[in-house]
């Protein structure tokens, strides 16, 4: 679905808008999950002694559940430096993920750096077109509804402080892993090599989670993608 250079600019514009709307539609369903998980973060941060203002601000400027949960958890048991380092390591996966979408982004270096802020796990995975190509409009469209939902959910959690197990008892904590597994199945349908990579990643993730927190385990499992480097069209020389 990569843009065909022979297509007139007007058609590309319309198609870009349609893909943006497609992304927005997906983003609204993801935003519902983000909203509910953010309520959990707001409640957790308040119970850890954070003020409402900083709890809500954290969601507005960090906009990353894994980093925010890590920050709150490590701050409660350690100092600032270990908490910041842990949260940063958790999100180091965004380095290769943003690099992957880079060719799809528009403009100069600064604009590309700004557009790359739309990279969050769910939108990034949903924007993958296959063959390492990404849909910029779908990526941005899917992220737009998630940010206000994440901030609003945090605000409700921080102010109303609902029971911590509300999200869990409604089964809503399964929204994101279920979404990821659905996208994974679509990826596996598209390539046999992806099945090999997924099997290797499962082993790496299961092993690395023995010693590492979840976000770091994700980073440690990403080298499984190296199995995709050999060119399937190139026969070895005899």
């Amino acid at each position: 679905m990569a843009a065909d250079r022979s297509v007139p600019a007007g058609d590309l514009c319309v198609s870009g808008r349609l893909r943006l709307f497609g992304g927005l539609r997906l983003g609204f369903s993801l935003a519902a999950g983000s909203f509910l998980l953010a309520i959990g973060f707001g409640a957790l941060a308040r119970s850890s002694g954070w003020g409402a203002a900083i709890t809500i601000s954290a969601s507005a400027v960090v906009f990353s559940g894994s980093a925010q949960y890590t920050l709150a958890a490590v701050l409660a048991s350690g100092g600032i430096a270990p908490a910041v380092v842990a949260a940063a390591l958790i999100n180091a996966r965004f380095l290769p993920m943003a690099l992957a979408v880079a060719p799809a982004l528009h403009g100069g270096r600064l604009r590309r750096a700004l557009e790359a802020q739309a990279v969050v796990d769910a939108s990034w995975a949903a924007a993958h077109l296959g063959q390492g190509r990404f849909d910029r409009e779908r990526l941005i469209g899917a992220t737009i509804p998630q940010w206000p939902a994440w901030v609003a959910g945090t605000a409700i959690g921080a102010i109303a402080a609902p029971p911590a197990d509300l999200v869990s008892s409604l089964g809503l904590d399964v929204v994101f892993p279920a979404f990821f597994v659905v996208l994974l199945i679509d990826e596996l349908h598209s390539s046999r090599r992806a099945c090999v990579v997924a099997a290797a990643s499962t082993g790496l993730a299961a092993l690395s989670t023995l010693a590492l927190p979840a976000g770091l385990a994700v980073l440690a499992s990403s080298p499984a993608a190296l199995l995709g480097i050999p060119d399937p069209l190139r026969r070895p020389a005899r």
Partner: protein
Amino acid sequence: MSLWIAVISVALINAAFKAAGPAVLGQHDIPPASRRLVAMLPAAVLTALVVADVIGGRWAHIDWHLAAGVGAAATARLFRAPMLAAILVGVAVTAGLRAIA
């Protein structure tokens, strides 16, 4: 005050991680070998996200109800359920199992 420093530091580091690749690469494309690597990143990252969500960091939160919900969503998708329907199946299975546990 120190909490604000921590939050702002994490926000800046997070933004820098996302900005670095596109800012360095600019309008250049990535070489074919890197593209093949990138093509496999979603499979590797999605698998790891699912595993990490289900078993938790340091195997601390193995949650069979969550695992069953994820399995149900995967099964629904394999039977060609639409994305949202598959996710709702997962939510219903996890919530149901927790309710009767």
